[in-house]
């Protein structure tokens, strides 16, 4: 009976997520139509003159001369074919080519490593601080993490560049090495240089993420320590390790799953500020450019990707929730 209700729960969640995705796709279309001006004019206005081949491509691609409903049908049709359109700024490069190339890899690597590192550090430090509630360790770590949490990330990045590049020469200034670069003899040479360039931005992001997550993890653990079932587990004379890691952890993990699910959108949206400071050629920097140059098709593609990742990751989080907590069967 339990298995069945779990299946029902997952399929309900899947249905919800699918519905949400459709709404997002529609919203993503509408959002740019109700913006002041229109994309074609924005491009044409910027260049100051009408380039006939450009207008032709625009009309072909978007059917800007067609009624809005027909435009929507075309948009959906193209989307189903995996066609996100052509970028205005990087014309005639396809949006999908711009997003799903080295930039996506750069961002996923940068954000993935930073998120994972911050998450693990936050849980470890949070658990330690909670188990030493109100001790010096606890108070010092709260002070440090609150400071790191409230430090503006671009300023932190600049400080790191100033000291670790400028003063101590420990890290490179900026940039993200590309594997196509002929200066790399083989993939390992590239990987080493890539890792070297990652240090600065990863450190910056980790410092800024860890602060908030540490506080959540600590708070969560503190609450769990006061629970009656922890007292029971201790009364049973179980090993302290089992009390902490079997009885407490599973409960304390629940809110952290939400935190992680929300962080998943960073994985593809990137960190615009950090990527800009370190000239890291990722999706954050691409978004920044797309906004600067009113590159609507590109923005539309980026938005859709971020929204899709948000929906999928919260769907996965819901399933993990159901697995971790048997009480959850909406």
């Amino acid at each position, binding site marked *: 009976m339990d298995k069945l209700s779990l299946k029902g729960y997952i399929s309900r969640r899947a249905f919800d997520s699918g519905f949400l995705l459709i709404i997002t796709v529609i919203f993503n279309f509408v959002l740019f139509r109700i913006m002041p001006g229109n994309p074609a004019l924005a491009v044409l206005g910027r260049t100051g003159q009408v380039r006939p081949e450009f207008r032709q491509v625009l009309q072909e691609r978007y059917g800007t001369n067609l009624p809005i409903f027909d435009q929507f049908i075309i948009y959906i049709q193209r989307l189903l074919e995996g066609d996100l359109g052509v970028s205005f700024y990087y014309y005639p490069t396809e949006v999908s080519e711009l997003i799903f190339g080295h930039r996506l890899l750069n961002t996923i690597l940068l954000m993935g490593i930073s998120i994972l590192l911050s998450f693990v550090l936050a849980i470890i430090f949070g658990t330690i601080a909670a188990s030493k509630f109100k001790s010096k360790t606890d108070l010092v770590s709260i002070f440090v993490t609150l400071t790191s949490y409230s430090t503006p990330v671009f300023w932190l990045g600049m400080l790191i560049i100033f000291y670790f590049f400028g003063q101590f020469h420990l890290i490179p200034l900026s940039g993200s090495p590309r594997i196509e670069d002929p200066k790399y003899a083989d993939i390992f040479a590239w990987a080493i240089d890539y890792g070297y360039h990652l240090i600065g931005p990863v450190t910056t992001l980790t410092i800024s993420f860890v602060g908030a997550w540490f506080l959540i993890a600590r708070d969560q653990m503190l609450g769990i320590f006061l*629970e*009656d*079932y922890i*007292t*029971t*587990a*201790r*009364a*049973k*004379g*179980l*090993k302290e390790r*089992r009390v902490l890691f*079997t*009885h407490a952890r*599973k*409960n304390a993990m629940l809110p952290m799953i939400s935190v992680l699910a929300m962080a998943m959108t960073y994985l593809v949206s990137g960190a615009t500020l950090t990527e800009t400071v370190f000239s890291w050629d990722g999706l954050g920097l691409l978004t920044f450019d797309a906004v600067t140059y009113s590159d609507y098709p590109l923005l539309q593609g980026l938005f859709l990707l971020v929204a899709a990742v948000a929906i999928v990751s919260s769907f996965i989080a819901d399933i993990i929730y159901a697995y*971790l*907590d*048997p*009480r959850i069967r909406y």
Partner: protein
Amino acid sequence: MIMVLLEVKNLSTHFFLKESRVRAVDDVCFTIDQGKTLGVAGESGCGKTTTALSIMRMLPPAGKIVNGEIFLDGVDLLKKSKEEMRKAKWKELSYVFQYAMNAFNPVMTVGEQIAEVIIEKENSKSKSGKKEAWKKVKESFEIVGLDPDRIKNYPHEFSGGMKQRAIIAMAMACDPKLLIADEPVTALDVIVEKKILKLLNEIQSNYNLGIMFITHDLSVIAESCDDVAIMYAGKMVEVGDASTVFHKGAHPYTRMLIRSFPSILGECKRIEPISGIPPDLANPPPGCRFHPRCPLATKECRKDIPPFEPFSTSRHHVACFHAGETIL
């Protein structure tokens, strides 16, 4: 020959707060015989739970046992190392907590939580040992009257009464000699309460289990306990077998406590509350701690602490200078 199972001698547990020292349990002595139930009664905050937690050595960080000995089957629990005590827990003595509803971890099955303690205490991490443990879980479910097919259920799938039965099953999982039950039926309605009390009595006679039964409900004690201990403000004021204490209670507090409970069968009369409030244990009154509320109090009571001495029989102890005197 009745064997003494638990002997608590001159136990004092104090809480060390920032600016004060709360004498929550002060110089308490009592014994529990094998296969018998001692009911511990008293107002909220009189030190019942602190006494129990001292025996389990599970006091909160501010609480310290400053004096005393606790012999379980002749071994002083207070002399055990932390690790020895951890091993003794649940195998020698187990505990049923006040909060039946939250005693189980919500994300683990009930059976899992019983099996884990059997596996830990029997040291049977092997496959066959685990199988054996699960078999025992099933048996324990049968003993407490739960359907053994429900061992894989989660706590939220149980009703309150079922949870309390499961907790008793868990407490009995490793055949302890002593069970400390801290208000085990307070959260239950009277019908379930009666069933649980009956279950405890059955288990006790089948397993020769000593029970320390903590409650503030005298009727529960009258129904299910062999001996009674009355506590007041961290002190033991009267200990004896149930009928002696209920019918020939000698300490004025005991008698006033009994009078403050309504009787269903007795004549219809107004219940008499004990006026006043229990003293602040950070700053207890000198002499007998009950003297500010006691109608029999004299000069002596205000100055000297009354000794805890045998009264009518060798098993009946009272701490009062005026034990047995009539209250007007």
